[in-house]
């Protein structure tokens, strides 16, 4: 070790460091400034950006000893005397902060960029300079638009903000607001799972299988245990109880028992004094494997395995099929007969990873209250249940806390092996145990979008009426079940809207393969099949020579109707959404008139707004929210829902604020701590705004009723005379006009703090046939996109230059947050469309890092134009529905359809590669058939 003299944020430190230690370790672990984040550990994501002698560096790849006698500036130093730097203020005001994990690095990069910008270059050129300047900082949430807005406005000293940091004098639905915690995030003060310091904690590292499918014949941990600093080595048989997010797929052990099912599966875990010792100990563990035949592709897994061993023992047949789902409505044969034109295509999709910037991390300890785990999870409730089951303790001995969370997108919505293992190690060692996965381990943990193959056929009459839709789908689930049964259904059922279909059916097979497991990811289950359907609709429009937008408009379902599979459609903004993007993109004026290589494409989408059925059958409400109002006038909102960067804590505060007519400064949200907060099922299936929002509204109305009752009693006034607004309660004639604190005095007199509860229970929905529950939701969302692309006809390279999108979210409770969700969804869709894929070599993920897994950077991201469509859902809180997932559906096929429009080739494989385009262009006579209408 060597002594390092370093000044950090103006304070001199003399620290002993390991010779090869990185600057990020010094800043985070030795000095304790955790605003600097670790996202990739190889300089590809930018989350660790700090200034060394006023220049930005990536601290995760900067040797600490190089910085001897240097001055380091981290995010924590930007605010002076407690006041945010103006750039930080802009990030907050513009909604540039979502999960906040990339934010400190992004701000540090931007702050150095600004002096070098050519401010006189004009707005477009300036934005391009900013895009280029921040292009080494990945953001998975925002689509970069609001970040670029923030930097541009700061640089130009202009103010176009519709929101203001301190504008909390009145809480109201529909006002654009930064997240309530945005300031904390932009300061670097928000603590994520790996930022929380726990005294005396040991570190955990895993030994992972080098085989995709093998028997474990023996494990020898003796050498590892001899290493100084090693406290415990755990193997699979210590945790024999299986778990999984779905009750019907409890098929995973925290540590492999007897056999491994994918390369990368955990076979042993070490608890040691340091990460380095734990890592070294893992190398000393000797595992003897007996390799089994691997099943790596869908087609292999559909077949009889013969004499070979199946991946999982259970299942009636001698193959690796996990789930078969099939539903049929109407008469598809008849539908084909009635169709004048049909289109049948085969589609292929690579797997996709969530790419959240915060790696999984957790700390667990045991004390007199049992187990406490602080972990990056979207579903504290289901983790709570899984931990109790696997640890074999009553539910009341488990506490799950979700701290600030750096993005989820579905990838943190299962209980995970590492969460169970650190709990186990903590029990065995009597010490807190910490773990942070490497980016490679995050990819191995996966649970991302399933690789899929499907054949989809649609038929249409010559006058443009959809007659039939049939989908035959196979999805690659990887080694374990996860949400796969749901995914199997969603690939089919979520095709029954947004268009009228009388004859509709699908069949899905989900197979096990010896690869990291797949699960739920933004737009769960229906993104790929939606791509197929929207591509086919484009093809049909081309065949019958009608405008593909007009064709869609002709076939949309109405509001207040039932689909063929008995989904109850209430509010429906399909039509408005499509008309909006047509107008904005000048569709009518431009379609068919663009030169070769330049194209426009449109597509639509549809998604659930919360699953009406719980994952684990029980009669708990979908969500419960508690409010406590005490003498100081503050309303404490407690909710089990998880804010994963999508802004749900703010949403709860806005709803309570609206009902009670008080400012957000009087509302405090405490969420996602299973000891302190009532059960909410979690942040999945786009359920939080609708369900937790309704529960919060119910709770606030109950509190309001308590207040009304107390005032009417004391003031002798009728309840319907009272108004709640502007931090006051007043009668219509203002004879009674009470400031909030007096209202609170009246309520709490001789009673003390008042606690109320609110809940949301889904209505009974759906048909009575088997499988009717899949995709049932109390409300559905709808949306459209038009994409504009340039295709290089010599290289096949696609540049997406514009995305116009519109999404029916019912009512935007917080338009700034809704826009952010939409922009982020479309950005993520651009990635799946043209650059992202999980690429395997013999079951090994080749691109398990942020250099090779190609999330679009700021330069690769098109200009995104977000439109909010409001249809005021009759059952949503103040009319609101989801906005976080459904929007991704239309953007991917819109891009593919734009490519067809540009160069006349129909790509049916994602991601769309330059090579595929070029190959097809050579085979096609695109120049003569390019024009659509």
């Amino acid at each position, binding site marked *: 070790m060597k002594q390092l003299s370093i000044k950090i944020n103006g304070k001199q430190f003399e620290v002993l460091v390991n010779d090869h230690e990185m600057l990020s370790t010094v800043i985070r672990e030795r000095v304790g400034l955790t605003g600097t984040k670790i996202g990739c550990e190889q300089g590809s994501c930018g989350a660790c950006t700090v200034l060394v002698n006023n220049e930005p560096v*990536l601290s995760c790849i900067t040797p600490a000893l190089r910085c001897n006698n240097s001055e380091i500036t981290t995010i924590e130093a930007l605010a002076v005397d407690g006041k945010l730097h103006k750039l930080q203020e802009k990030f907050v005001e513009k909604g540039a902060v979502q999960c906040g994990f990339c934010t400190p690095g992004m701000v540090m990069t931007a702050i150095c960029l600004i002096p070098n910008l050519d401010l006189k270059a004009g707005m477009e050129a300036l934005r391009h300079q900013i895009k280029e300047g921040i292009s080494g900082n990945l953001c998975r949430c925002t689509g970069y638009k609001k970040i670029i807005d923030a930097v541009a406005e700061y640089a130009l000293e202009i103010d176009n903000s519709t929101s203001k940091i301190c504008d909390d004098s009145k809480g109201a639905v529909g006002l654009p607001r930064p997240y309530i915690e945005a300031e904390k995030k932009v300061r670097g003060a928000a603590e994520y799972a790996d930022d929380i310091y726990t005294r005396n904690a040991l570190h955990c590292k895993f030994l992972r299988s080098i085989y995709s499918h093998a028997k474990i014949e023996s494990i020898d941990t003796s050498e590892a245990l001899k290493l100084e600093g090693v406290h415990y080595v755990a193997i699979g048989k210590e945790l024999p109880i299986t778990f999984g997010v779905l009750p019907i797929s409890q098929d995973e052990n925290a540590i492999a028992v007897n056999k491994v099912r994918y390369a990368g599966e955990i076979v042993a875990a070490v608890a040691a004094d340091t990460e380095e010792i734990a890592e070294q100990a893992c190398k000393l563990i000797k595992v003897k494997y007996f390799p089994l035949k691997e099943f790596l592709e869908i087609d292999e897994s559909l077949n009889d395995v013969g004499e070979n061993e199946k991946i999982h023992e259970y299942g009636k047949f001698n193959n690796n099929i996990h789930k078969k789902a099939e539903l049929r409505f109407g008469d598809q044969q008849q539908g084909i007969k009635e169709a004048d034109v049909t289109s049948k295509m085969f589609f292929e999709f690579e797997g996709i990873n969530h790419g959240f910037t915060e790696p999984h991390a957790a700390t667990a300890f045991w004390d007199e209250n049992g187990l406490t785990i602080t972990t990056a999870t979207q579903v504290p409730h289901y983790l709570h249940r899984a931990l109790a089951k696997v640890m074999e303790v009553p539910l009341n001995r488990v506490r799950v806390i979700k701290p600030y969370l750096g993005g989820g997108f579905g990838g943190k919505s299962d209980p995970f092996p590492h969460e169970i293992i650190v709990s186990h190690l903590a029990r065995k060692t009597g010490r807190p145990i910490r773990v942070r996965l490497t980016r490679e381990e995050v990819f191995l943990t996966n649970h991302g979008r399933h690789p899929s193959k499907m054949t989809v056929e649609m038929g249409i009459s010559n006058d443009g009426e959809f007659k039939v839709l049939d989908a035959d789908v196979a999805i690659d689930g990887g080694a374990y079940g996860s949400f796969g049964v749901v995914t199997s259904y969603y690939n089919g059922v979520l095709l029954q809207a947004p268009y009228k279909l009388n004859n509709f059916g699908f069949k899905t097979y989900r197979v096990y393969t010896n690869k990291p497991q797949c699960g739920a990811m933004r737009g769960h289950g229906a993104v790929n099949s939606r791509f197929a359907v929207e591509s086919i609709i484009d093809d049909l429009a081309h065949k019958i020579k009608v405008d593909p937008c007009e064709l869609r408009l002709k076939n949309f379902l109405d509001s207040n109707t039932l689909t063929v599979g008995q989904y109850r459609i209430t509010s429906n903004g399909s039509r408005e959404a499509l008309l909006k993007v047509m107008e904005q993109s000048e569709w009518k004026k431009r379609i068919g008139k663009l030169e070769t290589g330049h194209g426009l494409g449109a597509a639509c989408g549809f998604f659930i707004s919360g699953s009406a059925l719980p994952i684990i059958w029980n009669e708990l409400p979908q969500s419960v929210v508690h409010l406590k109002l005490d003498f100081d006038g503050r309303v404490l909102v407690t909710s089990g829902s998880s804010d994963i960067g999508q802004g749900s804590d703010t949403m709860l505060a806005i709803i309570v604020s609206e009902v009670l007519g008080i400012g957000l400064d009087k509302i405090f949200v405490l969420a996602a701590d299973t000891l302190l907060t009532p059960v909410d099922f979690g942040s999945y299936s786009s359920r939080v705004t609708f369900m937790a929002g309704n529960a919060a509204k119910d709770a606030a109305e109950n509190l309001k009723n308590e207040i009304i009752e107390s005032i009417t009693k004391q003031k002798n006034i009728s309840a319907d005379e009272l108004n709640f607004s502007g931090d006051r309660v007043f009668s219509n004639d203002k004879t009674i006009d009470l400031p909030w604190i007096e209202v609170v005095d009246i309520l709490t007199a001789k009673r003390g703090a008042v606690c109320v509860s609110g809940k949301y229970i889904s209505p009974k929905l759906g048909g009575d046939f088997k499988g009717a529950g899949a995709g049932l939701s109390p409300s559905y969302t709808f949306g459209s996109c038009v994409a504009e692309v340039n295709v290089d006809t010599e290289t096949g390279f696609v540049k997406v230059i514009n995305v116009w999108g519109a999404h029916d979210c019912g009512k935007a409770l917080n338009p700034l947050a809704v826009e952010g969700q939409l922009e982020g969804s479309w950005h993520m869709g651009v990635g799946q469309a043209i650059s992202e894929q999980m690429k395997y070599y013999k079951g090994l993920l080749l*691109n398990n890092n942020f250099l090779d897994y190609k999330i679009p950077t700021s330069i690769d991201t098109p200009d995104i134009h977000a439109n909010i469509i409001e249809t005021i859902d009759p059952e949503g809180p103040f009319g609101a529905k989801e906005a976080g997932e459904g929007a991704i559906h239309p953007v991917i096929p819109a891009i593919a359809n734009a490519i067809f429009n540009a160069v006349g080739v129909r790509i049916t494989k994602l991601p769309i590669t330059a090579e595929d385009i070029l190959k097809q262009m050579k085979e096609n006579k695109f120049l003569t058939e390019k024009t659509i209408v």
Partner: protein
Amino acid sequence: MVVDKTYINALSIEQAHSEAIKCTSGFRYIAGGTDVIVNKFQGNDNAEILIDLTGINELKQVVTKENNIEIGALVRLDDLKNYKVIIDNFPALLEAANSVASPVIRKTATLGGNLLCENRCIFYNQTEWWRESAGHCLKCNGNVCIASGGNKNCFAKFVSDTAVVLISMNASIEVFADNKISVIPIEDIYSGDGITPLKLSKTAIVKSIHIPLNNEYKSVFKKLRQRETLEFSSMTTAVTINKTGKLKIVLGAVHAKPIVYNGNITDDFNEILNALISNTRIIDNDVYSRAYRKEMITVFLQRSFKELSLLK
């Protein structure tokens, strides 16, 4: 016991060199380190001693001497744009430098480091666990090239973007090795062996990069990559002509070394293309297929020739 490691901040070339020759176990010089440190994380570089050169100020100068510009090896890629002589004479070098990694990395990465950056392959640039699982390839002491299936040659890609342009402009490097200084054409430092891609001795230190002035170079640089930032090259071309009608073409990321064509502007395009392509050794070790990368050589060179008005 966890192995002790050493880090040495060298303040002069002599100090760095004398520390290096003292090392009995593995050592490595690091400049910016943006390549070396990532390789260390992945276990591809196990040097226990790192000798940091960034404190050597004499390697950070840009000077004009006689008919050359001499760029210190430690000049950062981002700093190249601050020199008028580079902007005026070698815009393609700036373009190449700006195509490397990301803006923040370019504030750390150096020109010398980019010339010497390790060859890459999707089967090699992986963690220790991954490589053990896949079976070790030739470049990590295994017996077979996973990408090609062969067992003799490693064709891990040569990926320096700046080298391609510099070679096309007949640039040289000044090297301190074996207690003497020599000036070597850049193209001569690459061995063509993906396992040991540099001919320089391990203790050699690159002092500076020399580019001839007054040749009125016109260059076109092109890089094939999926995203417009962050990426290592999938295929790179640099085409340079000078005032006397000499033509020099360099291809990158198509072999373990740069592929060079020396000729005249009057040479037949198809013959040039054939000569170049026949020397490439493209294997499937990249996000783009071998066939596509090969096909793009033609497209990029045609475009470059058109931009230089050598083709219509």
